[in-house]
């Protein structure tokens, strides 16, 4: 018998009991919608983490000042500024696999431009900083080595700062005052979004490290050459652990740390932290999908239940069809097609509901959802598989009826 004819028979049989068919489909509709929505939410969270990794830059190691021990009392992390610009230069110079070692000096301050003002964070950096952090200039230009040497009063603005000070206007060439010191804006930075901790990474001003030290921060920071932290970008394909070890022994040597004593700095491999987060969000997405598929399973059991009822109700029809020449496999096909049709129609309606649900979640909860074609195809495939799996037993039961007994069934 032709497939088209089977589908037509199935649709007619489903139309006969409209309410029953709709209720049976409801299980599949909810199941498919749940799978699509949950995968959209899960992969939305996952792609968010991936974005953060991209914004941070890959193969990044962060060096932070460590604790110092004074008379047997160990002070906390960052209790003294042990890292210097010279450390950064030495790392860059002596470790081959380091692509860029960028020190940064952090300060906060009030910024004024014309009638607008804004409180923000500024970093004194070297030209390598942008390279290490994969940060791109959006408009204008970056720092020149001469800016660094001469402690020039030039600044790069993050997107948030630029918007707050200049609105839609072009900040390049304008003069701003940072802690009352006048600076010329030479460029703006491309948007980087939220950091791992949820901070706005674009609420920032960059200036040459010498300018920050000598003209803005002043005081003790000016006398030493200490820095807040050093970003180290390792060359693509290099052994991260090896570079970490080299850096550790280099710094211990430079800081004259006794063998057996604690490091006076902290090494943090940011890529590893992010990889762990990515892994956990991936597991989360999988878990959501797994929970949602349970409802698909329940929907499938609903289909099996209704198909069994249907086979019993239509015993005489089955007997008649067999009497006029239907083979067992024709009957099997007919009921299987009916179950799959039920599941597929439910699946299609579920897709619509799932897309609507994902959009609603994105709108109402403000979550990042990521609707993917694969997840939709997966859900439909799953629905069809549920139809075949749960439709098979009732269909086989129908096909094994004996024509004489089926015809005599009351």
């Amino acid at each position, binding site marked *: 018998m032709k497939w088209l*004819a089977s589908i037509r028979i199935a649709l*007619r049989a489903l139309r006969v009991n409209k309410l029953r068919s709709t209720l049976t489909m409801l299980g599949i509709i909810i199941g498919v919608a749940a799978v699509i929505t949950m995968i959209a939410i899960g992969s939305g969270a996952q792609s968010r983490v991936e974005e953060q990794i991209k914004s941070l830059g890959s193969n990044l190691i962060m060096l932070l000042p460590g604790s110092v021990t004074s008379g047997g009392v160990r002070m906390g992390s960052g209790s003294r500024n042990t890292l210097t610009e010279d450390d950064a230069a030495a790392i860059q110079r002596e470790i081959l696999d380091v692509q860029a070692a960028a020190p940064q000096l952090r300060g906060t301050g009030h910024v004024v431009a014309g009638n607008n003002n804004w409180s923000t964070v500024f970093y004194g950096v070297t030209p390598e900083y942008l390279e290490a952090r994969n940060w791109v200039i959006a408009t204008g230009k970056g720092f020149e080595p001469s800016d660094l040497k001469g402690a020039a009063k030039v600044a790069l603005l993050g997107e948030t700062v630029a918007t707050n000070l200049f609105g839609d206007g072009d900040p390049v060439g304008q003069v701003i005052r940072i802690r009352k010191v006048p600076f010329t804006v030479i460029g703006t930075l491309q948007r980087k979004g939220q950091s791992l901790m949820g901070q706005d990474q674009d609420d920032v001003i960059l200036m040459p490290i010498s300018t920050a030290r000598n003209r803005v921060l002043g005081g003790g920071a000016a006398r030493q050459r200490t820095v807040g932290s050093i970003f180290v970008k390792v060359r693509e394909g290099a052994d991260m652990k090896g570079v970490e070890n080299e850096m550790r022994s280099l710094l211990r040597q430079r800081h004259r740390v006794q063998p057996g004593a604690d490091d006076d700095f902290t090494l943090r491999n940011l890529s590893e932290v992010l990889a762990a987060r990515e892994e956990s969000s991936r597991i989360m997405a999988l878990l959501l999908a797994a929970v949602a598929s349970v409802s698909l399973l329940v929907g499938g059991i609903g289909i099996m239940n209704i198909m069994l009822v249907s086979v019993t109700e239509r015993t005489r*029809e089955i*007997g008649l*069809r067999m*009497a*006029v*020449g239907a*083979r067992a496999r024709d009957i099997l096909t007919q009921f299987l097609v009916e179950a799959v049709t039920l599941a597929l129609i439910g699946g299609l309606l579920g897709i619509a509901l799932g897309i609507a649900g994902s959009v609603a979640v994105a709108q109402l909860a403000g979550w990042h959802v990521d609707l993917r074609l694969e997840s939709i195809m997966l859900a439909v495939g799953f629905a069809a598989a549920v139809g075949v799996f749960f439709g098979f037993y009732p269909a086989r039961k129908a096909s094994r009826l004996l024509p004489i007994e089926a*015809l005599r069934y009351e």
Partner: protein
Amino acid sequence: MDGYTVAALRGVSLEIATGEFVAVMGPSGSGKSTFMNLLGCLDSPTGGDYVLAGENVSQLTGDALAAIRNRRLGFVFQNFNLLARTSAVENVELPLLYSQCPADERRRRAMARLAEVGLDERAHHHPSQLSGGQQQRVAIARALVNDPVLILADEPTGALDTRTSFELMGLLQQLNRGGMTVVLVTHEHDIATFASRIITFRDGHVLDDQRVAQPADARAMLEALEREAA
């Protein structure tokens, strides 16, 4: 069953020739239903042979029997067994659905058979919109649609009144005159008188097998009935 065998039929040897109109009679439990099931290839004999149109079908199973039923046999049941919510013409098409017949050909043949039983104008009515006699005529059209060699009618007049019964028997007689072999099960003597041969079963044996020299004419009986009423 349960370790011992019940013989429903024993020592039955019959030959039905092409073009015969056979009525099978007998009380319940006489074996006539088993006989009909065997004739209809709905059941296989535990012993013995059944040769249908020159082909021994007694050893066939499952799909092969389904194909024989599909190509060789036409069934008419007491309770019509039409598919509900399905039009008359689609009911007639049903056997063709299982014989790889293209859709337009199916429709053409079904309509021709409906015209033969005088129901072409009701082709798109559902069974619930037809009278009992009309439903049984649809069932006969369905039995004929595959050009069978044998029509098996199991108490076809059981659910019909006398007048409609005569009408239906007239239709079967007309088909028989056209060369169709008909085997009919009935427990009503006046229905059996329309056949050209009456076989009576009792306790699994053939009790009686007699040819009727001059079968009653259903059309004439119907006219007589209508004269009486008038």
